[in-house]
């Protein structure tokens, strides 16, 4: 499996403002059955999450944080960024695209990418001359 995070800018928000792209932390595991990814997307609306498997094993994940500041209060300290989450991975293993599953729980997106069943290994006969 080959992993490359490519800085592809995601679509901007509807109001035309350029939202920053957040490079949030991710975990990627390879198990016997396939690839399992965990992406931290705190505050992201489940409807805003978009997972797409494209050509050549390119997997793109986009989500948007829906956090809004509380009205009537003034911000005094900030460590949280509000914007788009975006990742792009290149998956080199054969993935069964029909069985890819995405589960959002407590602000963590879990992606299950099961490996496609491979054709049985074929022995190549060697002939002597």
């Amino acid at each position, binding site marked *: 499996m080959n992993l490359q995070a490519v800085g592809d800018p995601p679509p901007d928000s509807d109001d035309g403002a350029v939202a920053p792209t957040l490079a949030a932390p991710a975990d990627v595991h390879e198990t016997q059955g396939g690839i*399992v990814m965990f992406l931290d997307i705190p505050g992201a609306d489940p409807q805003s999450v978009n997972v797409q498997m494209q050509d050549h094993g390119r997997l793109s994940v986009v989500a948007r944080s829906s956090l809004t500041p509380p009205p009537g209060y003034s911000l005094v300290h900030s460590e949280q960024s509000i914007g788009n989450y975006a990742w792009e991975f290149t998956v080199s293993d054969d993935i069964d695209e029909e069985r890819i599953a995405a589960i959002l729980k407590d*602000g963590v997106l879990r992606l299950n990418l099961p490996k496609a069943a491979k054709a049985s290994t074929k022995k190549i006969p060697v002939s002597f001359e």
Partner: protein
Amino acid sequence: MLSSEIRRDNRWPTAFLDLRDAQGDLNRLFTSALRRRAQPTFLGVSIWVSGEGTIVRASVPGVGPDHLNVTVQGQTLTLAGQRDPEIAEGTSTQLRAERMHGRFVRTLLLPFRVDPEQVKAQFSLGVLTLELPRPAADRPRRIKIEEKPEEKSK
């Protein structure tokens, strides 16, 4: 500034935290040109204040309310909890490991005392929101200014 009052009381060794901060600085440097912001770290906190009280919002993705422990005492707010590894160690080959696991504690010194009875905590989408109102007796009160009638000159 409030930020200087916030103490980091983590159980991770400080050298590790320094390294993480340095990594964040480097990321910020290299990614700004690409419109990519630095990584929002786990347990990142935002704080808002008003005359009524303060609102604290913390990113704790993957830590359910059952694994969170929030305590308030006087001016001190403590967030503690645990994020367990989703996949047991040794059962997979980890190709990328950027997320933190284990126990965490973070202590914040708030700008004023809060009423522990009135604190409201809400958890949604991996974000913990705390409403911490000031005790009624401590709230700033508007002082009415009386206008004194001008004395007539003799």
